[in-house]
């Protein structure tokens, strides 16, 4: 009997997937048989290496798409290329994101604009094109990465938390809009996860965050990836419009 997690024959695009949560997610979806389309923008050499790693480790098809997730032209070109080559898209994981911590008075217009460009505009643009490819087959699943900060907020994260709260609103609305087309839309709200993003924190801040987690350990990218796999697979076939925290009982 085929595993209920099986993604054989499915094509999945994961934005921001050369490192951290995105990379863990790409590996897990590939392990379950999906054709994995990776995305990165800053480090093209790393993107190529990651594609090769997926192919050699999981013996599944993989491809790399280097583009700015918040650029309308770049997104259009990427989806045109996906359509041309694969003719379908079954799973979109909107993972690409940026975090720029600043106190309210110190937020630069550039930081505000860039954060919303990637974290919000990037999500909407990718959903626009992905949902159209999915609508052709009358099925698909979109997983957006929010954050515990988008639900709870925290000092110094006005812009980031705002962008991640926007992701929740986008998810809830799109879930309602796309349900008749057979497309599910859910969000994952990670807590404190061990990634490059959180490793940049000062040691005392790191300790403080760890102390606020009920399970007393930092989350791993794989912890988040497993929940993404649940939303990507048929195990969640009747689940849409949900925001699932992956935070080990963290209090903010």
């Amino acid at each position, binding site marked *: 009997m085929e595993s209920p997690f099986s993604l054989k024959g499915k094509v999945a695009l994961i934005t921001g997937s050369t490192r951290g949560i995105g990379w863990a997610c790409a590996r897990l979806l590939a392990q379950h048989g999906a054709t994995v389309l990776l995305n990165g923008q800053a480090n093209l050499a790393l993107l190529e290496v990651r594609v090769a790693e997926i192919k050699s480790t999981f013996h599944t098809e993989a491809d790399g798409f280097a583009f700015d997730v918040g650029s*309308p032209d770049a997104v259009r070109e990427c989806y*045109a290329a996906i359509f041309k080559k694969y003719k379908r898209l079954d799973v979109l994981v909107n993972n690409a994101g940026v975090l720029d911590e600043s106190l309210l008075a110190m937020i630069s217009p550039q930081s505000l604009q860039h954060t919303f460009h990637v974290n919000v505009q990037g999500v909407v643009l990718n959903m626009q094109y992905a949902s159209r490819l999915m609508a*052709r087959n009358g099925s698909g699943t979109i997983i957006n990465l929010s954050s515990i900060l988008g639900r709870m907020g925290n000092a110094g994260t006005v812009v980031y938390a705002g962008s991640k709260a926007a992701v929740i609103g986008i998810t809830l609305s799109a879930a309602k809009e796309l349900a008749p*087309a057979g497309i599910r839309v859910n969000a994952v709200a990670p807590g404190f996860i061990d990634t490059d993003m959180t490793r940049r924190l000062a040691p005392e801040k790191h300790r403080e965050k760890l102390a606020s987690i009920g399970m007393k350990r930092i989350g791993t990218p794989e912890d988040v990836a497993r929940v993404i796999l649940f939303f990507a697979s048929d195990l969640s076939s009747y689940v849409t419009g949900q925001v699932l925290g992956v935070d080990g009982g963290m209090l903010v």
Partner: protein
Amino acid sequence: MTNLEKLRQAFSEGLGMEISGVTDDLQYGNPGWDSVGHMALVAAIERAFDIMMETDDVIGLSSFARAKEILSKHGIAFQS
């Protein structure tokens, strides 16, 4: 099947209306063609002609006549 017939079929399928209702003067906002039906219509046209429209064209797809113009950009010809 001609391209015109294919387009009529796609409208009928996408908007869930009788093919006799798909006329040259059919426009967005007419009964059966609302914002919900629009997405199904786009999917039906793209599937029928094996193309992917740009967002501007999805927004600009406001009538049966306009659909023909948009498709002509993808090299799909309609006999007049």
